[in-house]
């Protein structure tokens, strides 16, 4: 199974977690990859926990669901509680440490990015937090190219592309930082 990445984005309803997953998936297509994106539905998607999953591969993807991801984005304390420990040992977690103060002990690498705070204070709009987080995760994990992400953001959010691309790039830069 050559180069198959599985990614889980999690947070709360209203954060744009699913849109983040869609944009990540579309960027992967622009990179020439195969991709499947799934998500949680129903009451879960309308409040409480929210989850989107993306599988990116060089080959056709068969089983479409993520069981244990290599990459995990945590955008709420509740998501951290549910999902943090379900990650591959050499995996990577990007956590919004401005709203998730506590993380359980895990063997995966952890990249802390104050996503919501950055969106609010640097970009001036907390609604861009999802895009900022996707930028951080994609760059920290080397998942998709920045160029493709920019195109995907412009495609999905044409009316607010400029602001979101600014957030994306800020997130991307944070993802490059190594502790």
């Amino acid at each position, binding site marked *: 199974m050559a180069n198959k990445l599985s990614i889980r984005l999690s947070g709360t309803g209203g954060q744009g977690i699913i849109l983040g997953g*869609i944009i990540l998936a579309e960027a992967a*297509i622009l990179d020439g990859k195969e991709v*499947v*994106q*799934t998500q*949680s*539905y129903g009451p879960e998607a309308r409040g409480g926990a929210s989850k989107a999953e993306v599988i990116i591969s060089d080959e056709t993807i068969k*089983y*479409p*669901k993520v069981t244990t991801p290599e990459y995990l984005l945590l955008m709420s304390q509740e998501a951290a509680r549910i999902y943090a420990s379900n990650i591959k040992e050499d995996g990577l977690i990007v956590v919004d440490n401005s709203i998730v103060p506590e993380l359980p002990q895990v063997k995966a690498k952890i990249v802390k990015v104050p996503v919501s705070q950055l969106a609010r204070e640097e970009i001036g709009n907390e609604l861009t937090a999802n895009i900022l987080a996707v930028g951080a995760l994609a760059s920290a994990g080397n998942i998709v190219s920045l160029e493709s992400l920019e195109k995907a953001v412009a495609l999905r959010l044409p009316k607010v592309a400029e602001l979101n691309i600014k957030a994306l790039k800020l997130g991307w830069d944070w993802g490059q930082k190594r502790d």
Partner: protein
Amino acid sequence: MRKAQLLQGNQACAMAAIDAGVRFYAGYPITPSTEIAEFMAENLPKVGGKFIQMEDEIAGMAAILGAALTGVKAITATSGPGFSLKQENIGFAAMTEIPCVIVNVQRLGPSTGGPTAPAQGDVMQARWGTHGDHPVIALSPASVLESYDITVQAINFSEKFRVPVIVLLDEVIGHMREKVILPSPEELTLIERKRTNLPPAEYKPYEADSTRIPAIADFGTGYRWHVTGLFHDENGNPSGKADTIHKQATRLLTKLDPYLEEITLYKSYCTEDADYLLISFGCTARSAAEAVDMARSKGYKVGLLQLQTIWPFPEQLVKEFCTGKKAVIVPELNAGQLRGEVQKVITNQTLSGVNKINGDLITPEEIVMKIKEVAGQC
């Protein structure tokens, strides 16, 4: 061909319908099928088509039949509880031979069950949900691209054979997004219902030639014919006579027989040298395909037959694929509905199932475990 895009299974189904010439949708919102209605509401008026949200599922089914009689291609979409409600009018469509397509995005049942939980429990309902013996076609896609292709096929089959065609999607395929490269609408091969070329005075609406499929006349074109769910003669007039009933029932029940090969759609994976055969469909076929890879990496020769046509059950095909195999395993998200059909046609292979009805998917690992268990017994 279109550009590569990320598309949801439900959206692909709706796009296919419009590309294949569907210009009428009537339905009622129900999870997990609602994206189909939403896509139709937005896009049908742009191509001169009509969308209507009816007051209930029954009315949605009724309205597409009324519309189809005027000559338009019509479709509805629903899920479990709604599929149950549509059954009487699906029987009406079978009896009166009105082309129509019903998309059933399966969810966990019975009853309200699990609205967003994946399941494949409507296999038997698709075949026998309405009362009485009747012809029906049911097709099941296992990817977003197949959701598109199979919806086009469903519309073609319903036009050609004048039978209700059911697209058995499931929650997983309906809701997931996947990279697809769709054909352009011009690239599609589309079939239109056979319309009569006789003058109205000579037209008998239910007189079939050797094709077994009668020619239709669109309402409003001067033919002034009668459509009834009662048994009827070649003129469409109701009849209670045993010989008239027998004649009509026999033609209905055998009308797909000459076309079984054409109707049977499937895919196979690694079956040629296989000792063990998996037979699956829809979302579970993807777990099964993954399981084939995993099992082969451990030295088990396993292959997969993915049925896209579920009804009429492809007996001949299944027989051929099972020949020479040591064992056959049917993974499906129900208690064994498809396995029962396989059981009817296989002879001396051991047959077992991998089944789940708790709202979770069957994982490739679970299928591999079953393969190991079966291999240990063989």
